[in-house]
């Protein structure tokens, strides 16, 4: 446990001296701010005519989409860079288990995104001020739980893929392709097949978010789905490091 924490802390600190992290942080807040502004403004004008009241899905759903694109950039260097710099030899000869290394890397990235997610809480808080009688907190928390679980899986897959490369860019694109595949494409056969396509529907990452937590409904099944995916990524990362030793 201690090793995981040591590695995670270092990764977390490292994000704050890397430009990519600040670009992601800044872009995220900017885009969310624009979405928020447009929605609130639009609603307030429409409100005169008895229009709709915006809810927090505009924040959480946008976040999920943006993390799909930015998670690969967050995870790409985690293990690939250690390989490139030769520091993998240092970590693999330190008294640290391979799984602790991968978990520490994942946790460091998760903590960074968690920081970002906490910052976005400013939008629901503002929305609560602007609307009467305020926002549905349970609905909001359900959405945020969904975001956390989705991000956890994104990062798990990302760290697993990062372990296979010594080139960050290769890790980035591979992760992006796999995420796009799992998020959108894998669900496509389900639509085509109709009945009998339930397996594809189950595998698709987005159904476990949009059909439940995004709508304020929390099912254990979806939580298990995302946690399994996270574990799978970390497991793959551990195995691939083990294989590197044997090579």
């Amino acid at each position, binding site marked *: 446990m*201690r090793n995981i924490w040591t590695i995670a802390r270092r990764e977390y600190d490292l994000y704050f001296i890397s430009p990519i992290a600040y670009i992601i942080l800044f872009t995220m807040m900017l885009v969310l701010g624009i979405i928020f502004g447009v929605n609130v403004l639009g609603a307030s004008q429409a409100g005169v005519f008895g229009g709709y009241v915006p809810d927090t899905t505009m924040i959480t759903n946008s976040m999920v989409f943006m993390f799909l694109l930015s998670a690969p950039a967050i995870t790409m260097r985690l293990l690939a860079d250690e390989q490139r*710099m030769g520091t993998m*030899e240092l970590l693999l000869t330190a*008294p*640290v288990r391979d799984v602790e290394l991968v978990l520490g890397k994942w946790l460091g990235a998760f903590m960074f995104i968690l920081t970002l997610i906490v910052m976005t809480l400013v939008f629901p808080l503002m929305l609560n001020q602007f609307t009467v009688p305020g926002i549905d907190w349970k609905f909001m928390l359900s959405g945020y739980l969904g975001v956390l679980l989705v991000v956890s899986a994104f990062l798990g897959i990302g760290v697993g893929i990062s372990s296979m490369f010594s080139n960050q860019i290769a890790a980035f694109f591979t992760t992006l392709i796999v995420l796009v595949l799992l998020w959108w494409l894998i669900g496509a056969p389900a639509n085509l097949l109709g009945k009998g396509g339930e397996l594809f529907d189950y595998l698709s990452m987005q159904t476990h978010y949009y059909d439940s937590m995004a709508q304020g409904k929390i099912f254990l099944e979806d939580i298990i789905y995302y946690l399994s995916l996270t574990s799978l990524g970390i497991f793959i990362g551990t195995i691939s490091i083990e294989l590197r030793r044997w*090579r």
Partner: protein
Amino acid sequence: MIQVSGLTKDYGARRAIDNLTFEAKQGEILGFLGPNGAGKTTTMRILTGYMPPTRGEASVAGFDIISESLEVRKRVGYLPETVPLYPDMTAFDYLMYMAQLRHLENAEDCVDDALEMVGMEERADGLVGKLSKGMKQRIGLAQALLHKPEVLILDEPSIGLDPGQVVEVRKLIKNIGQERTVLLSTHVLPEAQQLCDRVMIINKGQIVAEDTPGNLQARLVGAERASLRVRGKADKLLPKIQQIKGLENASLDSDGSLQFHFSPKKDVRPEVAKIAVNAGFDLLELKAVGMSLEEIFLELTREEKTAEPESE
């Protein structure tokens, strides 16, 4: 401290090390000498738990390198060939990170001690990426010394250092080697002679010789060699000096100098000089040619070949 028996490692079809057996005791500095690709790094990587061997057994500090890898890694300090550093961290932070991964109590004191040992206290707050190559090497060494390991494994520790630093680092290793076990690899022969209690010469994954540096030297230097340079063409001189007794294998080098061997018991150099001057040549240079590592290998393989029929 280090016990290795029948260690073999294959990379695909290529055999990197072949059935190595050796040991190193506490308070001993064992030198690993060999050309690039001889299997030095592979052996060290196996002993430090970086990779498992294909066959064979080894134990370090009393623990098996495969089944008790974590225990071994706790007790070994390792400086790999390419010094593993994080350029974005300060030297101090880097060492603190390693100290925390090793669960050291008083991590800060350990880091300060290690920095002092390698003489880098003043650069502790500088970014590692901004340090010179020699300084990086020393930070890498500090990392290996951090936890005061029982066994120190150093892969080419003096590479990239300037002569002053080389002396410092050697002194440091010598000190450490008095109480602990040091296994170091090098392809610099004088380094092995100065530092090591015992030297193992490894070539193509096999140990070709193992002895104290002194004994090894005595066994190898069967003949001394010198080179002579005169003004003008030396080819007419060649038949004259070939008549000297005790002089062997005289030949004309492509750069116009004469090369010859002689037995250490009878130094023929004064005679060679006299003949050259008497024959009317202007003597420009007469110097001893040291044995290079490559020649030692040649010498060793030749020795092995002639020794084999006797032992059978």
